[in-house]
């Protein structure tokens, strides 16, 4: 009898467990419309609304196993005005059949115009409220209107949008041409109020390029001239955010230099050229990799705080148009080494000057190191890194180590060939 009562009790306890916790909010994966990229714009006519553009992936495109329906397009784009991107999920359902899901939202696209707006930060912080938006989503800035950007962005081969964005952003990080630009980093830097945040910069509009013909890899998105039959979109350079507001755009070269100075960023392979010290006509192609961690010494005790940075760089020489035998000549190697160091130091110093004078803040994440010099947070806040930065005494030294000289070190003697 007692056993029966116990059993009855257990059942009574179990039933509410099923009813209360159960699977009533579950939804099958195919019942969602997955937003891969979301564009956020400021409509010109209305101050209090934003314009949302959804890029929705069609899971069935390019899937052989599902059988039939092979002709469906890989994506669907919808753009409309709304209060914010939280309520927009419902409003979109007036057109889109499935429930909008941000589960796969990997990229937030903001137009440059909106990013430069004072009020941008008010809207972007909605991303911290929305349950489904991941903090590792990327923040990207486009030169044009996001709707236009998304419509113009038509990858020829990577037709599935999530694949395209994932690949091109990853590759941009590896080559140092675009910054990592995580949403969480944006919030962290904005809230720390000490450094600059770099966001990915992209556009689908080509512009006629006039200035700076000397260095062919110093450009930003839109300035790259190319022909052929391919996508119109360029990912190049970075948008500079100060205190949650965009202030400028860095070129590819500047972005790469930032990678070198910033201890939190690593580019795996930077292919770039340097002027040849032996013949001014030519440039030497090199692969740059960080050779260990940069040595950053910050002294905050002095009246003018100082930063000494030593950047170790491994340089692999990949071309040799002047046909000089530096692989076997230590003297020439020394010259080469020195010329690389000087070129890099010069560029880095220019960038530092630009950040100190123009931006009045650093995009290098140095405040994270400087923070450790203070015992308490109020002390650190009283120091006011951003305010002190423009006056700081910054010394950059580059420590170049020469790596391989291509697969074959030797080069034929030009004189012997042309005799």
């Amino acid at each position, binding site marked *: 009898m007692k056993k029966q009562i116990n059993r009855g009790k257990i059942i009574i306890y179990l039933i509410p467990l099923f009813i209360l916790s159960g699977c009533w909010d*579950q939804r099958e*994966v195919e019942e969602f419309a997955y937003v891969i990229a979301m564009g956020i714009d400021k409509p010109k006519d209305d101050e209090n609304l934003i314009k949302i553009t959804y890029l929705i992936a069609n899971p069935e495109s390019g899937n052989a196993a*599902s059988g039939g329906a092979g002709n469906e397009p890989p994506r669907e784009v919808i753009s409309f005005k709304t209060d914010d991107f939280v309520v927009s999920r419902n409003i979109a359902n007036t057109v889109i059949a499935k429930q909008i899901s941000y*589960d796969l939202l990997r990229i937030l696209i903001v137009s440059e115009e909106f990013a430069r707006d004072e009020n941008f930060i008010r809207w972007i912080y909605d991303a911290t409220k929305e349950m489904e938006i991941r903090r590792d989503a990327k923040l990207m800035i486009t030169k044009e209107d996001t709707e236009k950007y998304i419509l113009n962005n038509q990858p020829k081969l990577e037709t599935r949008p999530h694949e395209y964005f994932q690949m091109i952003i990853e590759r941009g990080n590896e080559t140092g041409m675009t910054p990592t630009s995580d949403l969480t980093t944006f919030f962290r830097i904005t809230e720390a109020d000490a450094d600059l945040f770099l966001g990915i910069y992209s556009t689908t509009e080509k512009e006629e390029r006039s200035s700076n013909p000397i260095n062919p890899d110093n450009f930003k998105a839109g300035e790259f001239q190319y022909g052929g039959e391919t996508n119109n979109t360029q990912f190049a350079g970075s948008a500079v955010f100060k205190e949650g507001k965009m202030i400028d755009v860095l070129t590819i070269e500047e972005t790469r230099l930032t990678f070198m100075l910033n201890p939190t960023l690593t580019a795996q392979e930077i292919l770039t050229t340097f002027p040849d010290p032996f013949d001014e006509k030519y440039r030497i192609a090199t692969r740059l990799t960080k050779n260990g961690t940069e040595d950053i010494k910050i002294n905050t005790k002095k009246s003018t705080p100082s930063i000494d940075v030593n950047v170790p760089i491994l340089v692999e020489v990949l071309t040799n148009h002047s046909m000089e035998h530096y692989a076997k000549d230590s003297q020439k190697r020394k010259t080469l080494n020195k010329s690389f160091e000087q070129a890099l130091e010069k560029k880095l110093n220019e960038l530092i000057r630009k950040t100190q004078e123009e931006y009045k803040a650093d995009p290098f994440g140095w405040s994270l190191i400087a923070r450790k010099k203070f015992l308490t947070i109020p002390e650190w806040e009283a120091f006011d890194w951003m305010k002190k930065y423009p006056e700081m005494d910054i010394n950059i030294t580059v420590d170049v180590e020469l790596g391989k000289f291509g697969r074959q070190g030797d080069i034929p003697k030009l004189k012997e060939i042309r005799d």
Partner: protein
Amino acid sequence: MIKLRKSVKKKDKEVSESPKQNKETTNLTIDPSLEQTLKIFREIYTVPTNHDVIIRNLSIPGKDKPAAIIFIKTITDPQIIEQNIIKPLQSSTEPFQSIEDIVSAQTISTENNINQIATKINNGNVALFIEGEDLAFLFDASNFESRTVEKTENENVVKGPKEAFNEKAATNISLIRKRIKSENLVVESAIVSNESKNDLFIIYQKDLVNEKLLQNVKARVKSLDTNAIQNLSLLEQYIEERKYSIFPTTLYTERPDRAASFIEDGYIILIMDNSPDTLIIPATFWSFYHSAEDHYLRLPYANFTRLLRILALFITLFASALYVAVVTFHAEMIPPDLLLAIAATRERVPFPAAIEVFIMEIAFELIREAGLRVPSPIGPTIGIVGALILGQAAVQANIVSPIVVIIVALGGLSSFAIGDISMNFAIRISRFMMLLSASIFGLYGITSIFVMGLFYMLSIKSFGVPYLAPMTPNYISSEDTIIRRTLQKEIFRPGYVKPKNLKKRQGEN
């Protein structure tokens, strides 16, 4: 194996329905009058209706007295009866020669209780009655039909002995004696059923076995009060502690080498006629997870297979449950490529993911069960029909998505890596429990069922030995749990069976 069990059960039923033995003969002793005695036995064995019971009258010339032998011809060796019993008796001329000297049978015993004599005859003895003697002479001439020693069928190994037990206890004991040539090996016998008088052999090494464990086993065997226990598979269910538990607590093996190595570690094993297996007592979780080959293969290979096996175990338990949980509750965990692929294949499937997986899981179990039951010539056909037609057609008809076929097939295939049939069932049943809780509660459900399962396993004891020993609780042992060590480092016998001598060998160092 399942087939065998079921048919055995049926037989068991028939036996219990048969009429009870005559109670009045229980305490009767035999009459000196041969005529009277034979009358009693004719009655007991319903001769001549009973076809194979033979009562042969003969005379012993030396004694000049009529005599008779009784035996059952289907379970005795005619050669022995003729050459060693009848012939010497008929040709003896010495009047004072004793029966022991005349008959050249291997064993001779005397008995005067009719009931005991009948039992002996039932076991293949020949009973000799002589006019004027109030006791019977019993000669062992038993010859029960049985298979020869054959190859293993369930616990196959590539490297190592291939012999398996058969249904004859004497052969099985011989196979063990062949491996342990020690005077310390004791084969005790006990009768476990009232009517069929089934013999049980308790085998152990007397210098190792823990007395308490031995008493425990003997007590449980003695306390049985049933008419018949045909074989070990049935005995197992009589003596185990938790009859409703899904985890087995006795290890059932058909390999004499495995049984022998357990005896050498201080375990007790049980052998019965009609069982091509032994029961090893006690059993821990690890003994089900191990296979005989683990110690025959060289260390790296053995541990490689061990790791594969534990991987297979977890795949079996979790694959389908994880799929259901992740797809219905935690879609954000899946990489975009995979999520979109799953969403695409599920687009036209009419069922929720949980139902879909259940359909396939049940289909798989059906194929498996049906595959066991079909006569062997049709077996492969069923496999092809099951796997190809069902899987392929179900996908094409959009009943299930192809990913589910992969997941269920993977889980099903992995389940075969756990060789022991009892543990195999335990894992398969737990898989359904996992799946059910995953489809209701998601990952939380999987976690809680797994934790509950672990708690439960920790609470089980097999003949006083914790189920997960020596891992939890920790005991001195050779630490042969998930992976094994080199043979030289396996110094200790398992501490949890409390053997009299804990050390197997001197250590390497």
